[in-house]
């Protein structure tokens, strides 16, 4: 709403710079692991950013967002299994399938509100999870190994670690840019107005559900992109990426970073996953620390990291 050229902007800029320079650091120090880790982080940040569009800006608390990770991933995996290696085809199907799924479950879920909405989105994601578990031809519960990454001809080689990282980062930054434009557009203002006061928006003439549904579909489609990238990153897709705790992880990233802020979810994803990594190196029982930490963030850190930085400005 206000222009915030300050601590938040600086933090975001520093983060983007660090992400851009990471491969250089990795090759200088010979630390390949950090590149692998951050490829995953960037992909999940993309998923979190897409969730933030509906959660932070649209006020729709979806607890089933990981479903799109699975749908995007299975689109890649199934097509690869069936001998269609073209990345263009795979990614197009991944996006289209996610959009369609979002359209159907959005149209049904948006009839409800509040906790009921949280729960019905969860239920639909669980359904997707069980459908995937039942795909015996594609590995069922055990998942599906992808033997060849998506083929984009000479454009970009997904099997090259650095190229793949930059592809993921480019997708992330492009999506953040897209969302920045969306939230300031006519459409975006309507969606944010609906979050703020739906009755008022109807009274001045907006058909609220239409806008929410379109927003829901955009978010789902963008997360499908993350799913397609994730499957390429792990060379593997299984129902586990759709399990409800994964949706919970995504929500945590968004809230941790700061809902309804442009870069908040990116910050949240980096922080959450790096913390998870560090703690798990420190102790096998990392969740013993992570769990209470989340509780403390909720109790004392309102508005997430970005909220904290925002308060820093105002002094």
């Amino acid at each position: 709403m206000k222009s915030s050229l300050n601590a938040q902007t600086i933090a975001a800029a520093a983060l983007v710079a660090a992400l851009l320079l990471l491969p250089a650091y990795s090759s200088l120090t010979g630390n390949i692991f950090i590149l692998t880790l951050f490829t995953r982080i960037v992909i999940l940040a993309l998923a979190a950013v897409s969730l933030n569009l509906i959660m932070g800006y649209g006020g729709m608390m979806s607890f089933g967002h990981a479903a799109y990770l699975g749908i995007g991933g299975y689109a890649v995996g199934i097509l690869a299994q069936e001998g269609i290696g073209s990345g263009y085809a795979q990614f197009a199907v991944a996006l289209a399938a996610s959009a369609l799924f979002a359209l159907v479950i959005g149209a049904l879920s948006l009839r409800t509100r509040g906790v009921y909405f949280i729960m019905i989105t969860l239920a639909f994601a669980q359904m997707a999870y069980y459908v995937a578990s039942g795909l015996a031809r594609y590995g069922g519960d055990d998942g599906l190994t992808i033997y060849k990454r998506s083929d984009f001809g000479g454009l970009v080689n997904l099997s090259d670690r650095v190229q793949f990282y930059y592809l993921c980062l480019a997708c992330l930054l492009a999506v953040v840019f897209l969302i920045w434009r969306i939230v300031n557009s006519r459409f975006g203002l309507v969606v944010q107005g609906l979050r703020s006061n739906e009755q008022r928006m109807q009274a001045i003439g907006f058909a609220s559900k239409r806008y929410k549904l379109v927003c829901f579909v955009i978010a789902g489609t963008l997360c499908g992109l993350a799913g397609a990238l994730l499957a390429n990153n792990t060379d593997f897709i299984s129902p586990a990426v759709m399990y409800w705790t994964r949706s919970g992880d995504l929500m945590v990233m968004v809230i941790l970073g700061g809902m309804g802020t442009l870069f908040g979810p990116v910050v949240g994803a980096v922080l959450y996953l790096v913390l998870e990594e560090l703690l798990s190196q420190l102790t096998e029982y990392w969740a013993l620390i992570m769990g209470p930490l989340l509780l403390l963030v909720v109790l004392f850190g309102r508005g997430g990291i970005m909220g904290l930085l925002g308060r820093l400005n105002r002094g």
Partner: protein
Amino acid sequence: MAEPLLRVDNLVRRFGGIVATDHVCLEVGRGELHAIIGPNGAGKTTLISQLTGHLAPHAGYIYLAGRDISRLPAYRRSALGLARSFQITSLLPDFTAADNVALAAQAHDGHSFRFFANARKEPQLRAAAHAALERVGLGHRADVPVVRLSHGEQRQLELAVALATRPQLLLLDEPMAGLGVTESASMVKLLSELRREVGIVLVEHDMEAVFALADRISVLVYGRIIASGTPEEIRKNDEVKRAYLGDQHVVVKHG
């Protein structure tokens, strides 16, 4: 015979066993300011909510300029030129005053499925917003977030938002509620100017304002309209006096 701007025909709404709107009939002509008064709990807000489409009537019809709108959703009615202000101020709290009004202008500009261009930089939306804000005397507060506006300013902003949808008919639910003396006076002045441009249905407790402004007044008691007429006729009506003096504390002034 010209169709009135608003015609309400035998509207009925029940809540459980209580009939909150009991076969209400009402006509409001173009350029008319029609006030609805009545004791607390008479069903005034219930009636307004049915007119705007936030509450479905159980029977009866509502016509706007001859068109049956009884079953249309709120946003469609708004598109046809019906605007409302809320009894309890109902704005978008984290948006600025100008944003609130610009969104209303945008709603009636038609195209809101635009995803890329910055809506806050669209000149015609901003111009419409500033015009409406000037109209209600809030021009200088355009860029202030709603949460930091005073109560009186928020009431004025409610009106600006309603005006920005370029309505044929304005439904005002207690626009003076909670206003101080000076704020009330300027609201009365504003309404007396607006009535020349647009039909107004006014629900209000401030009798002084009602009798000063209204062309016609309908009195609602227990969901029924017991009297309808010019301020002069209403003042003289025995049934109205009984309804008010019998079970209400509000005294009809000048009466």
